[in-house]
Protein backbone atom coordinates (compact mmCIF):
# COMPACT_ATOMS: atom_id res chain seq x y z
CA UNK A 1 0.00 0.00 0.00
CA UNK A 2 2.61 2.45 1.14
CA UNK A 3 5.09 1.34 -1.54
CA UNK A 4 2.41 1.86 -4.14
CA UNK A 5 2.10 5.45 -3.04
CA UNK A 6 5.86 6.00 -3.28
CA UNK A 7 5.89 4.40 -6.68
CA UNK A 8 3.20 6.81 -7.86
CA UNK A 9 5.25 9.75 -6.65
CA UNK A 10 8.31 8.38 -8.45
CA UNK A 11 6.40 7.81 -11.66
CA UNK A 12 4.89 11.28 -11.44
CA UNK A 13 8.38 12.77 -11.12
CA UNK A 14 9.52 10.77 -14.13
CA UNK A 15 6.54 12.02 -16.13
CA UNK A 16 7.32 15.61 -15.18
CA UNK A 17 11.00 15.28 -16.11
CA UNK A 18 12.04 15.89 -12.50
CA UNK A 19 15.36 14.84 -11.02
CA UNK A 20 15.66 12.05 -8.44
CA UNK A 21 17.90 12.73 -5.44
CA UNK A 22 19.63 10.20 -3.13
CA UNK A 23 17.07 10.34 -0.34
CA UNK A 24 14.05 10.06 -2.64
CA UNK A 25 12.27 6.74 -2.80
CA UNK A 26 13.16 4.82 -5.95
CA UNK A 27 12.33 1.38 -7.32
CA UNK A 28 14.94 -1.28 -6.52
CA UNK A 29 15.60 -1.87 -10.19
CA UNK A 30 16.23 1.81 -10.85
CA UNK A 31 18.76 1.82 -8.01
CA UNK A 32 20.43 -1.37 -9.22
CA UNK A 33 20.57 -0.14 -12.78
CA UNK A 34 22.22 3.10 -11.67
CA UNK A 35 24.75 1.41 -9.41
CA UNK A 36 25.75 -0.87 -12.24
CA UNK A 37 25.96 1.88 -14.85
CA UNK A 38 27.69 4.51 -12.71
CA UNK A 39 30.23 2.08 -11.26
CA UNK A 40 31.02 0.67 -14.72
CA UNK A 41 31.49 4.23 -15.87
CA UNK A 42 33.82 4.91 -12.92
CA UNK A 43 35.84 1.75 -13.57
CA UNK A 44 36.19 2.79 -17.22
CA UNK A 45 37.71 6.12 -16.21
CA UNK A 46 40.18 4.43 -13.88
CA UNK A 47 41.17 1.58 -16.20
CA UNK A 48 41.25 4.13 -19.02
CA UNK A 49 44.27 5.72 -17.34
CA UNK A 50 46.35 2.64 -18.13
CA UNK A 51 46.63 2.62 -21.94
CA UNK A 52 47.54 6.32 -21.95
CA UNK A 53 49.73 6.07 -18.87
CA UNK A 54 51.78 3.67 -20.97
CA UNK A 55 53.09 6.66 -23.00
CA UNK A 56 53.76 9.25 -20.30
CA UNK A 57 57.42 8.33 -19.96
CA UNK A 58 57.86 8.26 -23.74
CA UNK A 59 55.90 11.35 -24.80
CA UNK A 60 57.92 13.02 -27.58
CA UNK A 61 58.28 16.43 -25.91
CA UNK A 62 58.02 18.07 -22.52
CA UNK A 63 54.82 19.82 -23.66
CA UNK A 64 53.18 16.58 -24.72
CA UNK A 65 54.24 14.92 -21.48
CA UNK A 66 52.66 17.69 -19.40
CA UNK A 67 49.47 17.50 -21.44
CA UNK A 68 49.21 13.73 -21.19
CA UNK A 69 49.86 13.81 -17.44
CA UNK A 70 47.11 16.39 -16.98
CA UNK A 71 44.70 14.36 -19.08
CA UNK A 72 45.36 11.11 -17.26
CA UNK A 73 45.01 12.93 -13.94
CA UNK A 74 41.62 14.24 -15.11
CA UNK A 75 40.49 10.70 -15.90
CA UNK A 76 41.41 9.67 -12.36
CA UNK A 77 39.30 12.57 -11.11
CA UNK A 78 36.38 11.47 -13.29
CA UNK A 79 36.57 8.03 -11.74
CA UNK A 80 36.44 9.54 -8.26
CA UNK A 81 33.44 11.81 -9.04
CA UNK A 82 31.61 8.77 -10.35
CA UNK A 83 32.47 6.44 -7.47
CA UNK A 84 31.08 8.95 -4.98
CA UNK A 85 27.96 9.38 -7.14
CA UNK A 86 27.47 5.60 -7.02
CA UNK A 87 28.04 5.63 -3.26
CA UNK A 88 25.05 7.94 -2.77
CA UNK A 89 22.95 4.92 -3.81
CA UNK A 90 24.03 2.84 -0.83
CA UNK A 91 27.03 0.91 -2.09
CA UNK A 92 30.54 1.64 -0.81
CA UNK A 93 33.95 2.22 -2.32
CA UNK A 94 35.54 -0.99 -1.07
CA UNK A 95 32.71 -3.02 -2.51
CA UNK A 96 32.99 -1.26 -5.87
CA UNK A 97 36.77 -1.62 -6.07
CA UNK A 98 36.55 -5.22 -5.03
CA UNK A 99 34.14 -5.93 -7.88
CA UNK A 100 36.61 -4.34 -10.32
CA UNK A 101 39.67 -6.11 -8.93
CA UNK A 102 38.08 -9.56 -8.91
CA UNK A 103 36.88 -9.13 -12.50
CA UNK A 104 33.23 -9.21 -11.46
CA UNK A 105 32.53 -5.67 -12.68
CA UNK A 106 32.74 -4.59 -16.29
CA UNK A 107 34.33 -1.51 -17.81
CA UNK A 108 34.39 -0.12 -21.33
CA UNK A 109 35.76 -2.67 -23.80
CA UNK A 110 37.88 0.00 -25.51
CA UNK A 111 40.51 0.01 -22.78
CA UNK A 112 41.41 -3.60 -23.47
CA UNK A 113 43.21 -2.64 -26.67
CA UNK A 114 46.95 -1.83 -26.63
CA UNK A 115 48.56 1.55 -27.31
CA UNK A 116 51.31 0.56 -29.72
CA UNK A 117 52.55 3.93 -31.01
CA UNK A 118 52.40 7.62 -30.09
CA UNK A 119 49.70 8.04 -32.75
CA UNK A 120 47.44 5.88 -30.56
CA UNK A 121 47.50 8.64 -27.95
CA UNK A 122 46.24 11.03 -30.64
CA UNK A 123 43.58 8.58 -31.79
CA UNK A 124 42.39 7.91 -28.25
CA UNK A 125 41.96 11.58 -27.36
CA UNK A 126 40.25 12.34 -30.64
CA UNK A 127 38.06 9.26 -31.10
CA UNK A 128 37.70 7.56 -27.72
CA UNK A 129 37.25 10.76 -25.72
CA UNK A 130 35.12 12.07 -28.59
CA UNK A 131 32.79 9.09 -28.30
CA UNK A 132 32.79 9.33 -24.52
CA UNK A 133 31.85 13.02 -24.75
CA UNK A 134 28.90 12.23 -27.01
CA UNK A 135 27.59 9.80 -24.41
CA UNK A 136 28.38 12.09 -21.48
CA UNK A 137 26.74 15.16 -22.98
CA UNK A 138 23.53 13.14 -23.09
CA UNK A 139 24.06 11.98 -19.50
CA UNK A 140 24.21 15.57 -18.21
CA UNK A 141 20.43 15.34 -18.38
CA UNK A 142 20.12 11.91 -16.81
CA UNK A 143 17.37 11.54 -14.21
CA UNK A 144 19.59 10.92 -11.16
CA UNK A 145 20.91 14.16 -9.66
CA UNK A 146 24.39 13.17 -8.43
CA UNK A 147 25.15 11.39 -11.72
CA UNK A 148 23.96 14.36 -13.79
CA UNK A 149 26.05 16.79 -11.72
CA UNK A 150 29.16 14.62 -12.05
CA UNK A 151 28.59 14.61 -15.81
CA UNK A 152 28.43 18.38 -16.00
CA UNK A 153 31.85 18.62 -14.34
CA UNK A 154 33.25 15.88 -16.51
CA UNK A 155 32.01 17.38 -19.77
CA UNK A 156 33.67 20.69 -18.94
CA UNK A 157 36.98 18.89 -18.51
CA UNK A 158 36.65 16.57 -21.50
CA UNK A 159 36.83 19.08 -24.29
CA UNK A 160 40.56 19.61 -23.86
CA UNK A 161 41.02 15.83 -24.02
CA UNK A 162 39.55 15.59 -27.48
CA UNK A 163 41.32 18.69 -28.77
CA UNK A 164 44.76 17.56 -27.59
CA UNK A 165 44.17 14.23 -29.33
CA UNK A 166 43.18 15.86 -32.60
CA UNK A 167 46.21 18.14 -32.36
CA UNK A 168 48.47 15.09 -32.22
CA UNK A 169 46.64 13.62 -35.22
CA UNK A 170 47.19 16.88 -37.12
CA UNK A 171 50.92 16.95 -36.37
CA UNK A 172 51.32 13.40 -37.58
CA UNK A 173 49.00 13.62 -40.58
CA UNK A 174 50.73 16.72 -41.90
CA UNK A 175 54.22 15.50 -40.98
CA UNK A 176 56.53 13.06 -42.76
CA UNK A 177 55.13 10.15 -44.71
CA UNK A 178 56.07 7.77 -41.89
CA UNK A 179 54.19 9.95 -39.42
CA UNK A 180 51.14 10.03 -41.64
CA UNK A 181 51.32 6.26 -41.94
CA UNK A 182 51.40 6.00 -38.16
CA UNK A 183 48.30 8.20 -37.91
CA UNK A 184 46.49 6.08 -40.52
CA UNK A 185 47.46 2.87 -38.74
CA UNK A 186 46.13 4.20 -35.44
CA UNK A 187 42.85 5.24 -37.06
CA UNK A 188 42.56 1.79 -38.64
CA UNK A 189 42.95 0.06 -35.30
CA UNK A 190 40.79 2.39 -33.17
CA UNK A 191 37.87 2.98 -35.54
CA UNK A 192 35.76 -0.10 -34.88
CA UNK A 193 36.55 -0.42 -31.15
CA UNK A 194 35.41 3.21 -30.85
CA UNK A 195 32.12 2.46 -32.59
CA UNK A 196 31.65 -0.41 -30.12
CA UNK A 197 31.82 2.04 -27.21
CA UNK A 198 28.18 3.01 -27.75
CA UNK A 199 27.15 -0.55 -26.94
CA UNK A 200 25.37 -3.28 -28.91
CA UNK A 201 22.74 -2.45 -31.56
CA UNK A 202 19.42 -1.34 -30.08
CA UNK A 203 17.72 -4.58 -31.08
CA UNK A 204 20.17 -6.58 -28.93
CA UNK A 205 20.73 -4.22 -26.03
CA UNK A 206 19.31 -5.87 -22.91
CA UNK A 207 19.41 -2.86 -20.56
CA UNK A 208 18.36 -0.12 -22.92
CA UNK A 209 14.62 -0.25 -22.51
CA UNK A 210 14.62 0.52 -18.78
CA UNK A 211 17.37 3.06 -19.20
CA UNK A 212 15.27 5.02 -21.68
CA UNK A 213 12.06 4.58 -19.70
CA UNK A 214 13.70 5.98 -16.56
CA UNK A 215 15.48 8.71 -18.51
CA UNK A 216 18.86 7.40 -17.37
CA UNK A 217 19.73 7.43 -21.05
CA UNK A 218 17.98 9.81 -23.40
CA UNK A 219 19.17 8.44 -26.69
CA UNK A 220 19.75 4.92 -27.93
CA UNK A 221 23.10 3.27 -28.70
CA UNK A 222 22.46 3.37 -32.44
CA UNK A 223 21.41 7.02 -32.41
CA UNK A 224 24.59 8.04 -30.62
CA UNK A 225 26.75 5.90 -32.89
CA UNK A 226 25.21 7.47 -36.00
CA UNK A 227 25.74 10.96 -34.64
CA UNK A 228 29.36 10.16 -33.83
CA UNK A 229 30.07 8.97 -37.38
CA UNK A 230 28.34 12.00 -38.89
CA UNK A 231 30.35 14.34 -36.74
CA UNK A 232 33.71 12.63 -37.14
CA UNK A 233 33.92 12.22 -40.90
CA UNK A 234 34.68 15.85 -41.61
CA UNK A 235 37.58 15.60 -39.15
CA UNK A 236 38.84 12.43 -40.84
CA UNK A 237 38.70 14.09 -44.26
CA UNK A 238 40.57 17.14 -43.01
CA UNK A 239 43.44 14.93 -41.90
CA UNK A 240 43.54 13.29 -45.33
CA UNK A 241 43.04 9.89 -43.72
CA UNK A 242 40.47 7.19 -44.46
CA UNK A 243 38.38 5.03 -42.17
CA UNK A 244 38.76 1.26 -42.64
CA UNK A 245 35.25 0.82 -44.03
CA UNK A 246 34.51 0.37 -47.72
CA UNK A 247 30.78 0.81 -47.14
CA UNK A 248 31.08 4.18 -45.50
CA UNK A 249 29.52 6.92 -47.57
CA UNK A 250 27.19 9.85 -47.22
CA UNK A 251 23.55 9.01 -47.83
CA UNK A 252 21.75 12.01 -49.32
CA UNK A 253 18.25 10.77 -48.56
CA UNK A 254 18.82 10.15 -44.85
CA UNK A 255 21.27 13.09 -44.57
CA UNK A 256 23.67 10.88 -42.66
CA UNK A 257 26.49 8.43 -43.30
CA UNK A 258 25.96 4.77 -44.03
CA UNK A 259 28.62 2.65 -42.36
CA UNK A 260 29.47 -0.94 -41.44
CA UNK A 261 28.67 -2.32 -38.02
CA UNK A 262 31.65 -3.30 -35.91
CA UNK A 263 32.28 -6.99 -35.35
CA UNK A 264 29.91 -7.70 -32.46
CA UNK A 265 31.36 -11.15 -31.83
CA UNK A 266 34.70 -9.46 -31.11
CA UNK A 267 32.91 -7.03 -28.78
CA UNK A 268 31.34 -9.87 -26.80
CA UNK A 269 34.65 -11.62 -26.60
CA UNK A 270 36.49 -8.55 -25.30
CA UNK A 271 33.77 -7.60 -22.81
CA UNK A 272 33.79 -11.10 -21.37
CA UNK A 273 37.48 -10.90 -20.56
CA UNK A 274 39.29 -12.16 -23.65
CA UNK A 275 40.48 -8.97 -25.35
CA UNK A 276 44.15 -8.35 -26.08
CA UNK A 277 44.84 -6.58 -22.76
CA UNK A 278 42.11 -7.60 -20.28
CA UNK A 279 44.47 -9.63 -18.09
CA UNK A 280 47.18 -6.98 -18.16
CA UNK A 281 44.72 -4.22 -17.17
CA UNK A 282 43.27 -6.19 -14.28
CA UNK A 283 46.72 -7.18 -13.05
CA UNK A 284 47.90 -3.55 -13.17
CA UNK A 285 44.85 -2.37 -11.19
CA UNK A 286 45.32 -5.06 -8.56
CA UNK A 287 49.00 -4.35 -8.23
CA UNK A 288 48.43 -0.58 -7.87
CA UNK A 289 45.80 -1.17 -5.21
CA UNK A 290 48.03 -3.58 -3.31
CA UNK A 291 50.96 -1.18 -3.46
CA UNK A 292 48.76 1.54 -1.96
CA UNK A 293 47.70 -0.56 0.98
CA UNK A 294 50.46 0.66 3.32
CA UNK A 295 49.55 4.27 2.48
CA UNK A 296 45.92 3.74 3.46
CA UNK A 297 46.97 1.88 6.61
CA UNK A 298 49.40 4.66 7.59
CA UNK A 299 46.83 7.39 6.93
CA UNK A 300 44.22 5.56 9.01
CA UNK A 301 46.69 5.06 11.87
CA UNK A 302 47.75 8.72 11.76
CA UNK A 303 44.14 9.91 11.78
CA UNK A 304 43.36 7.64 14.72
CA UNK A 305 46.41 8.80 16.67
CA UNK A 306 45.42 12.45 16.20
CA UNK A 307 41.82 11.78 17.22
CA UNK A 308 43.01 9.99 20.36
CA UNK A 309 45.30 12.89 21.15
CA UNK A 310 42.40 15.33 20.83
CA UNK A 311 40.14 13.16 22.99
CA UNK A 312 42.78 12.77 25.74
Amino acid at each position, binding site marked *: MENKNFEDIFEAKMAKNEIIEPKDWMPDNYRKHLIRQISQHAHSEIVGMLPEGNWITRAPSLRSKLVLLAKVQDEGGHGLYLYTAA*ETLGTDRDELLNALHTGKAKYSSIFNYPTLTWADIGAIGWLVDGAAIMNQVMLQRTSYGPYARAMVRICKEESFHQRQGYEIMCHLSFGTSEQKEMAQDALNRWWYPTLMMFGPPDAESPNSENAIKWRIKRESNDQLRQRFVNQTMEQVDYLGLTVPDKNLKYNETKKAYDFSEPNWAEFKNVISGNGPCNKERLAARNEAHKKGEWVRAAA*AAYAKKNKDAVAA
Partner: protein
Amino acid sequence: MSDSQGPIWEVFVQKKAGQPFVHCGSLHAFDKEMALQNARDLYTRRNEGMSLWVVLSSAIVSSSPEDMGPFFEPANDKVYRHPTFYQIPDAIGHM
Protein backbone atom coordinates in the same frame (compact mmCIF):
# COMPACT_ATOMS: atom_id res chain seq x y z
CA MET B 1 42.83 -5.75 8.47
CA SER B 2 39.99 -4.00 6.68
CA ASP B 3 41.27 -2.05 3.72
CA SER B 4 39.15 1.07 3.95
CA GLN B 5 39.20 4.35 2.05
CA GLY B 6 38.34 6.49 5.07
CA PRO B 7 35.02 8.26 5.67
CA ILE B 8 33.14 10.38 3.11
CA TRP B 9 33.47 14.18 3.20
CA GLU B 10 31.29 16.71 1.40
CA VAL B 11 33.08 19.49 -0.46
CA PHE B 12 31.90 23.09 -0.85
CA VAL B 13 33.64 25.61 -3.10
CA GLN B 14 33.54 29.37 -3.09
CA LYS B 15 34.17 30.56 -6.61
CA LYS B 16 34.99 34.19 -5.86
CA ALA B 17 35.23 36.30 -2.74
CA GLY B 18 31.79 37.35 -1.58
CA GLN B 19 29.97 34.47 -3.25
CA PRO B 20 28.24 31.65 -1.37
CA PHE B 21 29.90 28.27 -0.86
CA VAL B 22 28.34 25.74 -3.19
CA HIS B 23 28.35 21.97 -2.82
CA CYS B 24 30.39 20.39 -5.60
CA GLY B 25 30.72 16.74 -4.63
CA SER B 26 32.28 14.38 -2.12
CA LEU B 27 35.42 12.37 -1.53
CA HIS B 28 37.10 9.91 0.84
CA ALA B 29 39.81 10.98 3.28
CA PHE B 30 41.11 9.84 6.65
CA ASP B 31 41.34 13.25 8.32
CA LYS B 32 40.60 16.96 7.79
CA GLU B 33 43.96 17.82 6.36
CA MET B 34 43.81 15.06 3.82
CA ALA B 35 40.20 15.93 3.02
CA LEU B 36 41.19 19.51 2.23
CA GLN B 37 44.14 18.48 0.09
CA ASN B 38 42.11 15.88 -1.77
CA ALA B 39 39.36 18.45 -2.35
CA ARG B 40 41.90 20.83 -3.85
CA ASP B 41 43.29 18.15 -6.17
CA LEU B 42 39.89 16.80 -7.14
CA TYR B 43 37.64 19.85 -7.40
CA THR B 44 39.88 22.83 -8.11
CA ARG B 45 42.31 21.67 -10.77
CA ARG B 46 41.27 24.62 -12.98
CA ASN B 47 40.92 27.49 -10.53
CA GLU B 48 37.28 26.65 -9.85
CA GLY B 49 37.50 28.27 -6.45
CA MET B 50 39.43 30.37 -4.02
CA SER B 51 38.18 28.83 -0.82
CA LEU B 52 37.07 25.33 0.23
CA TRP B 53 34.98 23.81 3.00
CA VAL B 54 35.07 20.11 3.75
CA VAL B 55 32.72 18.53 6.23
CA LEU B 56 32.22 14.93 7.31
CA SER B 57 29.22 13.63 5.42
CA SER B 58 27.97 11.92 8.57
CA ALA B 59 27.85 15.31 10.35
CA ILE B 60 25.25 16.72 7.95
CA VAL B 61 21.66 16.82 9.11
CA SER B 62 19.09 17.02 6.34
CA SER B 63 15.34 17.14 5.88
CA SER B 64 13.82 14.07 4.29
CA PRO B 65 11.87 14.11 1.06
CA GLU B 66 8.94 12.13 2.54
CA ASP B 67 7.91 14.94 4.84
CA MET B 68 8.73 17.66 2.35
CA GLY B 69 5.06 18.69 2.24
CA PRO B 70 4.28 19.12 5.97
CA PHE B 71 7.82 20.28 6.82
CA PHE B 72 7.68 23.31 4.56
CA GLU B 73 3.94 23.78 4.93
CA PRO B 74 4.14 26.75 7.34
CA ALA B 75 5.48 28.92 4.51
CA ASN B 76 2.74 27.99 2.07
CA ASP B 77 -0.07 30.31 3.16
CA LYS B 78 1.96 33.38 4.05
CA VAL B 79 1.62 35.46 0.93
CA TYR B 80 2.11 38.57 3.05
CA ARG B 81 5.81 37.67 3.25
CA HIS B 82 6.14 38.67 -0.40
CA PRO B 83 6.38 42.26 -1.67
CA THR B 84 3.65 41.75 -4.29
CA PHE B 85 1.06 41.31 -1.50
CA TYR B 86 1.07 45.07 -0.85
CA GLN B 87 -0.64 47.80 -2.87
CA ILE B 88 1.45 50.89 -3.42
CA PRO B 89 -0.09 53.90 -5.22
CA ASP B 90 1.00 54.17 -8.86
CA ALA B 91 2.15 57.73 -8.20
CA ILE B 92 4.91 56.37 -5.97
CA GLY B 93 6.33 54.16 -8.72
CA HIS B 94 8.90 51.55 -7.90
CA MET B 95 9.46 50.70 -4.24
